[in-house]
């Protein structure tokens, strides 16, 4: 057998400080809350001590953002654009360092942080930089105005990418921001603060406050925040929607999903198998739009599953910094516990569980790629978001049945459809109640393309021309 020797990406490109403060008004400052540790989920090694922003720290950040809003929003769009272009360029210049940092803090494979996350982050800033002086052409009136201060709370699955999705359009439209990264993955956001300084971004335009749920609550409930943007679980999204109800704040929510990936009998099978693997095992399945429900036409179910299992046998799980790793670490002990709990429930409810032979490292948080067959719509693993490398396989007989099953969920973020027949793709896409439909591909993202959900997957769109609306007073 051709065994690949370890090929670790060098850690030397990053310089992690022992402790980090908050980034407020262009300066790093201590937080008044109790600091917390962020760890490498692949080894449980402590990476750094990070400040917790208390309610008063959040208030300070919001005030800094408010102060900066006047000049930032009054600045010609072409000048704002140049700041954002600078940020895009610095991210490109420092992309390897940021990729390694992301993999260390998050547990995702370096191949993904290097080839997916970081290029998309830079592209997102590049794209929205170009909008800053063209807002009058976006279809929201001749001179659309920004909202003010945006309070943004992002998740741990794509820390820097979610930051880019939030900050780039906000700044382009003339808003200032206070952003809270997830408590398990704060490091790249803090590196981003340093990038803002390198770009000479005026103080207060971007503020980063670290902490857990309470810090996030303080931010979204702050009375001087005009706009709330949240990406995370549907449960927290619902709380936010409730707590800001009646406040007049503009809200966008990008929440959970339980995407159907529908494979018809005439699909290009080898590519469909790749798409299924990419759909659910990309980023350890920590993807809100993951294709976690495989709906396969019964006539090819056996053949497809055989091919899928064979392919899973070649997935390489292990050290996220190894350039050949396909599946990295689960982000946290809490998330691992949730994945285990739902998987156990799947077995208890009668679905059949399968994983390839796969040895898990002793330290850190790991879960093998897992397939459940014989899953019914009523099983918890077919209804609840696992947010892990767990695929539920269901079958269907006709296109109508596929659509019916795909839509039979409170979520509506994304879906996939695999067939060589174009008219079927378009028919299925038109019937699916989901914000993004991928045909003969999966988990594709681009700054020009709007992303967001139907139903309980949230509201508002990020990316593209549509993504501007969330940050304009329209």
């Amino acid at each position, binding site marked *: 057998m051709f065994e690949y020797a370890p090929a670790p990406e060098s850690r030397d490109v990053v310089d992690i400080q022992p402790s980090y403060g908050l980034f407020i008004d262009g300066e790093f400052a201590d937080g008044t809350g109790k600091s917390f540790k962020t760890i490498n989920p692949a080894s449980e090694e402590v990476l750094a001590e990070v400040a917790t922003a208390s309610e008063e720290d959040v208030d300070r950040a919001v005030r800094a953002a408010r102060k900066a809003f006047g000049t930032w929003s009054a600045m010609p769009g072409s000048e704002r*654009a140049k700041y954002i272009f600078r940020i895009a360029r610095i991210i490109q210049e420092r992309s390897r360092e940021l990729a390694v940092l992301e993999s260390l803090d998050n547990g995702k494979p370096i191949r993904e942080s290097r080839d997916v996350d970081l290029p998309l982050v830079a592209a997102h800033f*590049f794209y929205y930089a*170009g909008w800053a002086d*063209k807002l009058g052409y976006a279809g929201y009136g001749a001179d659309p105005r920004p909202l003010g201060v945006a309070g943004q709370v992002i998740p741990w699955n794509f820390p820097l990418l979610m930051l880019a999705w939030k900050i780039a359009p906000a700044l382009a439209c003339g808003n200032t921001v206070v952003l809270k990264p997830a408590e398990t993955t704060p490091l790249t956001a803090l590196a981003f603060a340093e990038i803002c300084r390198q770009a000479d971004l005026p103080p207060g335009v971007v503020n980063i406050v670290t902490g857990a749920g309470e810090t996030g609550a303080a931010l979204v409930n702050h009375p001087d925040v005009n706009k709330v943007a949240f990406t995370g679980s549907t449960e927290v999204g619902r709380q936010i929607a409730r707590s800001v109800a009646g406040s007049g704040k503009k809200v966008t929510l990008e929440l959970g999903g339980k995407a159907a990936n529908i494979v018809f009998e005439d699909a290009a099978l080898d590519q469909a198998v790749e798409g299924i693997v990419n759909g659910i095992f990309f980023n350890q399945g920590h993807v809100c739009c993951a294709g976690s429900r495989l709906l396969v036409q019964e006539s090819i179910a056996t053949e497809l599953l055989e091919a899928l299992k064979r392919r899973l046998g070649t997935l390489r799980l292990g050290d996220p910094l190894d350039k050949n790793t396909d599946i990295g670490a689960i982000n946290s002990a809490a998330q691992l516990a949730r994945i285990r709990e739902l998987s156990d429930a799947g077995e208890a409810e009668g679905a059949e569980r399968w994983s390839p032979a796969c040895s898990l490292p002793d330290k850190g948080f790991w879960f093998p790629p897992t397939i459940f067959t014989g899953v019914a719509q009523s099983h918890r693993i077919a209804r609840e978001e696992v947010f892990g490398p767990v695929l539920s396989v269901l079958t269907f007989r006709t296109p109508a049945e596929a659509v019916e099953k795909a839509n039979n969920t409170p979520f509506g973020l994304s879906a996939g459809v695999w067939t060589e027949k*174009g008219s*079927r793709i*378009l028919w299925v896409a038109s019937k699916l109640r989901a914000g993004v439909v991928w045909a003969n591909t999966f988990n594709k993202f681009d700054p*020009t393309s709007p992303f967001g959900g139907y139903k309980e997957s949230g509201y508002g769109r990020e990316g593209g021309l549509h993504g501007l609306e969330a940050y304009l007073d329209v």
Partner: protein
Amino acid sequence: MSKTERPSRARASAELAAEGPGERAQSRDSVRLAVRKTYKLYIGGAFPRSESGRSYVVTSSKGDFLANASKASRKDARDAVTAARKAFGGWSGATPYNRGQILYRVAEMLESRRAQFVAELSESGTKKAGEVVDAAVDRLVWYAGWADKIAAVTGSTNPVAGPYFNISSPEPTGVVAVVAPDEPLLGLISVIAPVIVTGNTCVVIASERAPLPSITLAEVLATSDLPAGVVNILTGSVKEIAPWLAAHMDVNALDLTGVGDENLAITCEEAAAENLKRVFRPTGADWSADPGTRRLTAFLETKTVWHPTGA
């Protein structure tokens, strides 16, 4: 350095000093003889002399000798069209993101040569050359941003009454022949950038009176990852070359911005009618104003695709 040239160089240096930290040694050192640059054409990524072997004298606004610029012939124009056509497939097939990145790179490279352009523009009589160069850089940045946005603004999905998916999107028209205005940098950038950012390639006839900054711009383009042949720049007589480009059957569109002579414009438009070139002939150009999108859309085709929807 010749005696006749010295005054203008000195003026340029004085302006440079006023513009910022870009002073050059030459203002302090009058002993050393400068090595002058030969200004040539820019075709297919290379810098050839005119195949005709001709040149013409370019003078400063005060009438001092500046350089002998190449005087392009109809055969140079033909070669430039060939180069532009060859580049079209790759350039129009590049992702808009890639094209935007490259235009932004051009802006970066232009900014890094700011002092040189300020000097050259001053020599050719441009007032407030520093502001003009800044505006030219910003114009490039403006158009760089359009690369991946124009389709969202001008494209559409069309709700046809039937079981069809129907989408319209803009596509570049092809090879565009451009007569650049007598505004040697800002005007030149303002006509080139909107043509190429959407995926067209072009053959540009530079300002006849002040062609030197256009060749210096070619040096910027040649070092900005812009593929060879996307922009080709000819210097020489507009009256001589423009009709050949207007009549060329492998040119798809014609931008007559820089044609001031009414009779020449009509001659060109008539020649362009033969293969139904798209002709763009704006009136009253104010290069400092918001350029809008008309220069982008002037060189775009709209393609509509139908596809049935049905299980």
